């Protein structure tokens, strides 16, 4: 099972992660700008490092995270691999799925991607999230898994 190549996520996911990082950086950049206006140190003492750090975070990290993520849709199980430093490799058999969510935030919707969330009855991994799927793929996967889940009763 470990030898099987993983399916890559939708490339739009990289863009979404980048925009999310930029949105996250806004308050910090605003703070740095305030520092600049206050003229506390030499010009650029606040703005340059903050912008550099976030530029790095926005350009490099999403791409590397994207490359580290992947999934494999097996006949009776879904394997989700994620993590750059802390790798996690989760397998959920379809027969143990309690219910399935397909979720989209506004940004994800603009780029046509979705998150597929599988809920299990286990305490650990009670919900396994697979982000960055093309919306149609996510819906198709949901239907396929749904077909396996014969009865959604306890």
């Amino acid at each position, binding site marked *: 099972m470990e030898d099987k190549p993983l399916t890559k996520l939708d490339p739009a996911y990289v863009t979404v992660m980048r925009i999310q990082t930029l949105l996250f950086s806004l308050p910090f950049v605003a703070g740095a700008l305030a520092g600049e206006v206050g003229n506390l140190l030499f010009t650029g003492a606040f703005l340059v490092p903050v912008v550099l750090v976030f530029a790095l975070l926005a350009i490099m990290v999403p791409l590397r995270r994207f490359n580290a993520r992947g999934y494999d849709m097996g006949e009776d199980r879904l394997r989700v691999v994620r993590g750059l430093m802390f790798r996690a490799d989760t397998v959920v058999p379809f*027969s143990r799925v309690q219910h399935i969510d397909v979720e989209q935030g506004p940004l994800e919707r603009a780029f046509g991607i979705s998150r597929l969330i599988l809920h299990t009855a286990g305490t650990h991994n009670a919900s396994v999230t697979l982000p960055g799927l093309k919306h149609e793929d996510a819906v198709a996967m949901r239907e396929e898994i749904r077909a396996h889940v014969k009865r959604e009763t306890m």
Partner: protein
Amino acid sequence: MSEAQAEIEQGWQRTHPLAMVAGAIAALKNAIFPIIAVMFGSQAMDRGSGFLFLIVLAIIGINLLAAWLGWLRLRYRVGADDIRVEKGLVSRSARSVPYERIQDVSLEQKPIPRLLGLTEVRFETGAGGKDELRLAYVTLEEGERLREVVRDLRDEAQGLELAEKKQREEQGELLFHMGPERLLKFGMFEFSLVAIAVIGGAAQQFDFLLPFDLWDPEGWEERLAGPGDWLAGLGWASRIVGAIIAFIALVGIGFVTGIARTFLRDWDFRLDRTLKGFRRRRGLLTKTDVVMPVHRVQATVVDTGILRRIFGWHGLSFISLAQDAKSANHSVAPFAQMDEIAPILEVAKFDLPAADTKWHRASADYYLVRALFGAVPFTIGGMVALVFAPSVWIGFGLIGVAGFIALRAHYLWRYERHAVDARQIMSRRGWLSPKLKLADRVKLHSVEISQGPLAKWCGYADLKFGLAGGTLSFGGLPLAEAQEMRAAVLSSIASVDFSRLPR
């Protein structure tokens, strides 16, 4: 069926009128502190006690009114597909739980409702804790009837033949019982210093009630200088005797608390095997009566303590979807010898590890990393303390802690082990008080292999299983072994659909 049908036709029902009284008394317990506060506050005022009496009366009155309104606005219905409870004065809440989702119905009698012959009914759905549907309070007979009705309707909803169910009379077979003598032994091992902390805390909280300042050393000197002067004159020997007496008193309090708590919780503990599963009854003031269907047992835990282990005492608990008081595990034999535990496990369809079980150990690197992470900071701290601290003992103490952490990691590496057989996953954790966990391979929900940067470097991985109602994880397995275990377990999980799990 007829009983169930009659139940449906009856429609909406109220809880027992006495529930108002029980509710009001429970609420009054919460009102005691405001009342005390009013009493103290009023000392500062000039008005007489009549005013005070009015306020206390008003607090009691408000509580009674609230209890009455609460009772008036609470109703429940045992319907064809679900049980419904509607309550709330201003904001109504209507909760409906389908029978298929009800794991179990448990009854709990707290002291006051018990005096009134009432019980609280809890419908366990696996939601856990506060989200569970509760009905407080109905008569004990009504509670037991509800339990029967809900169980029958649930079984019906699951397509079981009711007639067949009815035919099999509910007959219990005693599996485990604890009499007073056993409880006394159990209580001795439950030695607790909580009471001492409580007394200390109370002394601090309520010192305003004492006529003198407890925490003022000068005051004590003054008091001792008078009649207590002879104490100071008795010299060292008597002080040592005094210290010994104080120590014995503390230990005595510890034992008495442990024994008292054990008696309160586990009085007349009995575990029966009934047709509907395991039935556990226990409690002196708060009696509980819980039924756990055999198939709902997800995993079993056999644990012990450092001292009780020497005498062969172990505790058995079940991990199940429904929650027990305060903990997720249901304690089914808290204090028993292994030969008493084995038959219970057999009924629950679990086996103790056989003699020829192939145990595996985690990677030594994993424990080495853990030992280093724990011990290195303490060692550095100890060195620094040796150089700078006024007393060498701080430094030696810290280095001693580091040594203990390293020693513990070594012994954990030697003692912690796991095994997978055709049906079960077995895990033994801990050093001085080892814990044995048995889980059914089929009753797992997901498998995860995770690695941090250090784990990747050393080539080991953590293996975590999704277990309903509990956790099952193995740290620091060699990567290949973790992958092998995952593949093996996944093949057994995937072969059985959730809905076809033994019910």
